[in-house]
Structures are given as C-alpha cells and as structure tokens.
C-alpha cells in the first residue's frame, strides 16, 4: 500500500488551497464580484456625503473598511455551500487529513482570492479619497491583517450556516458583531496615521488578533463543519 497522500501533514492543506484556487480561476466572477462591490461601495459614500477634501479624508478609512468588511462577507457566503451541496464536504470530513488543517486551507484560499485583491486595489481607492502617502501604506497593512482575520473568522460563520434557511443574511448577523474589533482597529489606525499620530498600537493589535484567529478559528470551523454537515 502506498501511503503518499498522508505522509505529509500539510499535503491536504496544500491540496485544498490548490483546488480552490483552480476553482476560482475557472470561475473568475466569484472572485471579481466582491471586488467590484468593494469599489462601488467606496464610490457611493463620496457621492452621498460630499466631495470636499476634508470630508473625503475624514470618512475615507472608515468607508474603505466598511466596504472591505461587507465585500468579504459577500464572498464568505459561498465558502462552504458548494462543498456541502455537491458532497465534497463529506469527503473532506472523511479524509485522513486533520479537518482543522483542511478548514485552514479553505480560509487560506479564500484570503488569496478575496483578501489579496482587496488589499491590492486599496491604494487606488485611497488615492480617490485623497489620502496622504503614509495612510495608504497603513491602510494596506491593516487590510492585510484584517482580511486574514476575516477569512478565518468568517469561515466559522460560513460553516455554521450551511444548510440553514437564508444563510446569507444569517451569516452577516453572526459575523458582524464578532468582526467589530477588526473594523474598529483597522479604520481607527488608518485615521490616526492621517494626522501623523502613532499607529503601532493598532497594528500590533491587528497582528495579534490575526495570530489568535489563526490558531483557534480552524478548530472552531472544523467543529462547525462536522455538526452542520450531519
């Protein structure tokens, strides 16, 4: 018996990441829709609020963070739904690979296909909000930590809502209150950098939160998947 598949603890993780990346490559819409949504939400606010530089700079970080949060939620809806519906979730759960690692792979792929594009496009929007250079950088840094945390945290919610009625709106209800610390620290830290105030505290917090989520969220996701796939 050849045991190639199970010899390496991370081969399952890598396989899940590869498969999900391949899937979003074949369905680029799943990846692009939340990105366009992010762009549009961010243009709504200046149109609704007013175009003066002062207003833009004041609302910019908050608006961008709310937009990023909502866009991530939008893409999280479908994180486990197709796996549940086509039966591949059964196969993931019955795999010899540890399920938390596979769940981590799902979060990682989600971040690569949704978080990274958000981070990459954020300088463009920051410029539209007339943010100074240092804020653009801080915005990107907070978004990196924030989107990783959201992909991990959101995976728990996404797993809990598989098979539930109206999973979409339910997911926002579950995740938004839990995501508040990320939003608060992300947006406020970017705002602070605008006035050249120290930003280290916020970035440290986001980094710590990210590590915390990285170490615990996959276990909660795995438990939720086992329960909700029954």
């Amino acid at each position, binding site marked *: 018996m050849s045991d190639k598949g199970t010899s390496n603890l991370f081969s399952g993780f890598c396989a899940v990441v590869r498969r999900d990346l391949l899937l979003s490559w074949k369905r680029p819409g799943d990846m692009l829709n939340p990105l366009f949504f992010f762009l549009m939400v961010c243009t709504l606010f200046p149109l609704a609020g007013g175009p003066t530089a002062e207003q833009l700079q004041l609302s910019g970080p908050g608006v961008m963070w709310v937009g990023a949060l909502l866009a991530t939620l939008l893409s999280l809806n479908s994180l486990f739904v197709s796996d549940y519906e086509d039966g591949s979730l059964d196969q993931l759960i019955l795999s010899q690979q540890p399920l938390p690692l596979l769940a981590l792979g799902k979060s990682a792929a989600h971040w690569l296909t949704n978080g990274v594009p958000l981070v990459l496009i954020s300088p463009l929007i920051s410029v539209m909000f007339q943010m100074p250079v240092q804020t653009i950088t801080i915005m990107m840094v907070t978004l990196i930590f924030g989107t990783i945390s959201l992909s991990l945290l959101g995976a728990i919610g996404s797993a809990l*809502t598989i098979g539930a009625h*109206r999973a979409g709106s339910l997911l926002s*209800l579950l995740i938004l209150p839990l995501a508040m*610390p990320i939003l608060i620290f992300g947006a406020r830290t970017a705002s602070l950098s605008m006035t050249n105030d120290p930003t280290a*505290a916020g970035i440290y917090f986001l980094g710590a939160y990210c590590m915390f989520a990285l170490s615990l969220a996959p276990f909660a996701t795995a438990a939720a998947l086992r*329960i909700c796939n029954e």
Partner: protein
Amino acid sequence: MWTWFHKLASPPHFFRISEKMVPWFGISGLLIIAWGTWHGLFVAPPDYQQGDAFRIIYVHVPSAYLSMAAYMTMALAAGIGLIWRIKLSHAVAAAAAPIGAWFTFLALATGMIWGRPMWGTWWEWGDPRLTSELLMLFLYFGYMALRAAISDVKKADNASGVLALVGAVNIPIIHYSVEWWSSLHQGATILREDGPAMPPEMLTPLLFNIAGFTLLFGALLLIRVRTGVIYREHRKMWVKNLIQRGEL
C-alpha cells in the same frame, strides 16, 4: 458529585426538582428587589452631582451585569453540552439567550434614559460601556437567529453552542477594542468610575438589587428550561405520563 450531576441532568429528575426551586428563586428574588428598590429610591441620599437621576443605576447596573452573566451561563452550558453531550445543558443555553437579550435591552434603555439628563443626548458614542452593551445585544441576536434558522433541535444545539463559545472568547476582545476606540475621542470622558466611592447607604441597595436580579434570572431561566425540556421530550414516556396524570 458526578452521580449527582448525572442524576440532575436527567430531564425527568430535573423537572421534578426544578418545580420546587422556581418559587424559592422567584419569591426571594422579588422580595430582595423590592427591599433594594425601596431603599434605593427613597432611603439612599441623592448624589451630590447627579441628584436623583443616579437612582436609575438600581436597575441599570444589575441588568448590565446580568447581560454579561447570562451570556457566560449560556456559553458555559453550551460548552458542557458539547463536550459531555448533555441535552439538558443545551436546553439551559437555549433558555438563557432570550433572557440575556432582554436584560441587555433593559441595560441599554436605562443607560439611554440616564444619559439624557447627564450628557444631554440619548446616545453618547463616547461611552464605551453603552456601545459594548449594544454589541452584546447583537451577539444575542446572532445566537438566537442561528437557533431559529436550524430546524433540527440537535443540530441547532450543537451549532449555536459553537457560536456561543466563539462569542464568549471574543467578548473581552470586543470590550477592549470599544474602550480603546472611545479613548481616542477627547471630551467625552464622563466616566462613572471617576466619582468618589459610593457611600454604603447607596451601595447596599445596589448590591441587594444585583442579588435579587440574579435570583430572578435563575427563576426565569428555570421556567424557560422546564418549557424547553417538555418541548424536547414531548414524545417520551415520562412526559406522556405527566399529561395523563394531569400534572402538566
């Protein structure tokens, strides 16, 4: 200890015991609240700064404390239910959520009413505790919405249990971040803890009300758990027997 625990966890046994416990909790809780409220409203001296407006704390503080305690009860019960697969424990978690949400609502409402004369506004974002309470209410909403969305009781128990535990881990983080956030605002620093220590004639009624509210919470929780147990076990023999004997 363990045999006692397992015996209590059996639904019929719990149903029998809790029937006797509800009036004890309920009546003693109401009596203590009556004493505490009387002393709080009429005996305690007015605050030298806030006048009589401070007296709302006799409802506000116990509610705020219970909004937190109820969530912790819920998370603890859910954790026990998940680990040891005790159905009664899940019933406790499910019953605690709406009560906790009402206490949270009460804490928010009284906080807003208190804020009107103190801050001149119904809602002061600069106060971290009020904002935390609001997020607490959202956490309860999420928990109850998840339960309502899953029709299978067993699955709803386990799924909402995971959510309760994730929420319990996050609550300190949420509180900390809201506090950090409001500390950035200047000017809005009316913090109640800055004041001088409470004189005993103010503090004692408050402590009594906290104890009374807790007992009342216990009574309400037991009543809801009893209903939940009957609902969950309505096909079991012991429930059918109770109905036959006309005891239900």
